[in-house]
């Protein structure tokens, strides 16, 4: 069994109350940081831990913190990105609803490190019930003296608020999130200036994912060096993986980074294999925006090494043979899955969620969806596959925010690894569109 740093107590009865949470060591990091450490020392521990942003980008959290501008007399903000909406990713919702105080403790310790006196948790609007759980826990933290004025007699003040979104995936992008928090449409901003210099209300701001912030108490309590001992190479610590699709035991697993993908899928400790005794066909390993990989490539790297659940191993070989750890949204597909249908579904998602600000994304995602729709429904033409690949290529790198890439990568990867299945759809429309039709394999295509 791997070590559990965040979820060790997740099933303890009453852990959502401050009493039980404190009995299990809760809020120690706040006391330790505020009473015995300077803010810079906390930042230093996070740097030493090697913690990388758990929202998907994997950028080192400590380094992100050290970029924060600190002009005198100007407020700065910490904003927690709890707008989890990436298909396949559902870890933050679970973490917040079961362990609200872990996130709050992380917010307080992190805010102290950054010198923020007001912090916000931006939570996706659909999770109003989680917002209530968090607000109740925040009230308990105020009453216990961990929030408000003069925390633990240190002279440090912090107010913490929860803010609901309104149902827009794009608000998970940090600058769109800040626009939304200011009461506007969630249109991403051009960077630079980065939020670290001009973020919320044009003030210096750090935006971190729920899971990244939840890891901070552990790092402060045990020390960054201890945290860095877990994992492999530059993939330190533990990671929450939300596993779904055709698995026997879908759910949320906290793994030590470095578990082999094969073990994660098939062992009883984790997903328990593919449902209905079927064979695995493909996996999207890090949320819908990362490239899909066929079974052979997700289990082994191009060099034939076992693929590991780390940032590096999953991306081994770039996008030719690899993918990304991303947000840890692990979607497994069995042998009966129609890749064209799945790719169309994801394209529909990105078209629906494009904010419409940049033409390549606004128009391009629509084109991707339309072409995939007609291939899936038996009206594809021989040119379509190349047009699809070309549209995807032209979205990439030409938009203000990464939603463009998120829409393009799944399509180009599906064509890269499953081109023959697209061709089958186009050449044998009647067979391919029969309900429950399964691509019969290359031999039949020839």
């Amino acid at each position, binding site marked *: 069994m791997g070590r559990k740093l965040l979820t060790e107590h997740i099933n303890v009865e009453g852990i959502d109350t401050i009493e039980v949470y404190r009995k299990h060591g809760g809020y120690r990091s706040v006391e330790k940081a505020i009473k015995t450490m300077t803010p810079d020392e906390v930042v230093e521990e996070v740097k030493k831990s090697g913690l990388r942003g758990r929202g998907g980008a994997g950028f080192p959290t400590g380094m992100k913190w050290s970029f924060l501008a600190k002009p005198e007399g100007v407020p700065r903000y910490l904003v927690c990105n709890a707008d989890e909406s990436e298909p396949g990713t559902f870890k933050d919702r679970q973490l917040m609803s079961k362990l609200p105080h872990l996130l709050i403790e992380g917010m307080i310790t992190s805010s102290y490190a950054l010198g923020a006196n007001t912090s916000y948790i931006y939570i996706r609007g659909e*999770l109003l019930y989680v917002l209530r759980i968090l*607000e*109740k826990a925040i009230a308990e933290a*105020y009453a216990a003296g961990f929030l408000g004025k003069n925390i633990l007699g240190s002279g440090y003040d912090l107010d913490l608020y929860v803010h609901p979104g*309104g*149902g827009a995936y794009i608000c998970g992008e940090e600058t769109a999130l800040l626009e939304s928090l200011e*009461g506007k449409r969630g249109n991403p901003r051009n960077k630079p200036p980065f939020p670290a210099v001009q973020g919320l209300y044009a003030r210096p701001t750090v935006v971190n994912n729920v899971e990244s912030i939840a890891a901070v108490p552990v790092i402060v309590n045990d020390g960054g060096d201890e945290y860095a001992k877990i994992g492999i190479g530059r993939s330190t610590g533990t990671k929450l993986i939300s596993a779904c699709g055709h698995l026997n035991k879908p759910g*949320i697993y906290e793994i030590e980074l470095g578990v082999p993908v094969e073990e994660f899928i098939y062992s009883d400790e984790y997903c328990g294999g593919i449902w209905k005794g079927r064979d695995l066909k493909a996996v999207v390993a890090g949320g819908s925006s990362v490239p899909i990989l066929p079974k052979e490539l997700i289990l082994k790297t191009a060099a034939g090494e076992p693929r590991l659940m780390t940032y590096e191993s999953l991306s081994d070989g770039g996008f030719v043979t690899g993918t990304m750890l991303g947000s840890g949204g692990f979607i497994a597909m069995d042998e009966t899955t129609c890749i064209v249908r799945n790719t169309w579904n994801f394209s529909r998602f990105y078209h629906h969620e494009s904010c419409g600000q940049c033409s390549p994304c606004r128009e391009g995602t629509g084109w991707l969806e339309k072409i995939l729709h007609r291939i899936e429904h038996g009206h594809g033409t021989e040119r379509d596959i190349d047009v699809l690949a070309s549209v995807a290529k032209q979205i990439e790198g030409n938009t203000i925010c990464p939603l463009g890439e998120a829409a393009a990568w799944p399509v180009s990867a599906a064509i890269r690894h499953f081109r023959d299945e697209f061709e089958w759809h186009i050449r044998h429309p009647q067979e391919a569109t029969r309900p429950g039709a399964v691509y019969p394999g290359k031999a039949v295509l020839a």
Partner: protein
Amino acid sequence: MEPTNAPAKPQFSEAAKAEIDRICKQYPAERRKSAMLPVLHIAQAEFGGWVAPEVQDLVAEVLGVKPIEVYEVSTFYTMFNLKPVGKHVLEICRTGPCQLRGSDELTMELERITGAKVGEGPSADGLFTLKEVECLAACGFAPVVQVREKYYEQLDTEASVNAMLSELRNMVHRPALPWEETGLPNAVANN
């Protein structure tokens, strides 16, 4: 000629006003517009599950912004209903992971049982509006339907679907508004 039977201008209840005041204090005084989304959620819950143009005007008035600033937000975010809805809005997740576990079939089944059509008006009895939505972040428990704040998960059997619908049919009173169940002293977070 002025219409003589113009509908009365909508007004927030006292409880909603208090909640709005509490929320507005969470942002710098000159940044009251930040409360836009939370206040729209309150408005939608208070006025029958959708935000009519006059409700949006009321939100603008409360926040001290121009009505257009509310319209551009309400039309951007998918959670705000711009047309009247049934007593229960069933938001069916249709995204990849849910589709892999049968959300298309679930949608057809719900259309058949309720008589409502996705994307159209409420069912004839006024009870159900069906809405397909993108990812609800519950992929491990697919297929999933959200009704207000409650998630109905693993709706892959006839029994689970029927249990959900009968629970909703038997709900006599209107569901609680978001601020009615918090049990929070209003001033707690604003010291």
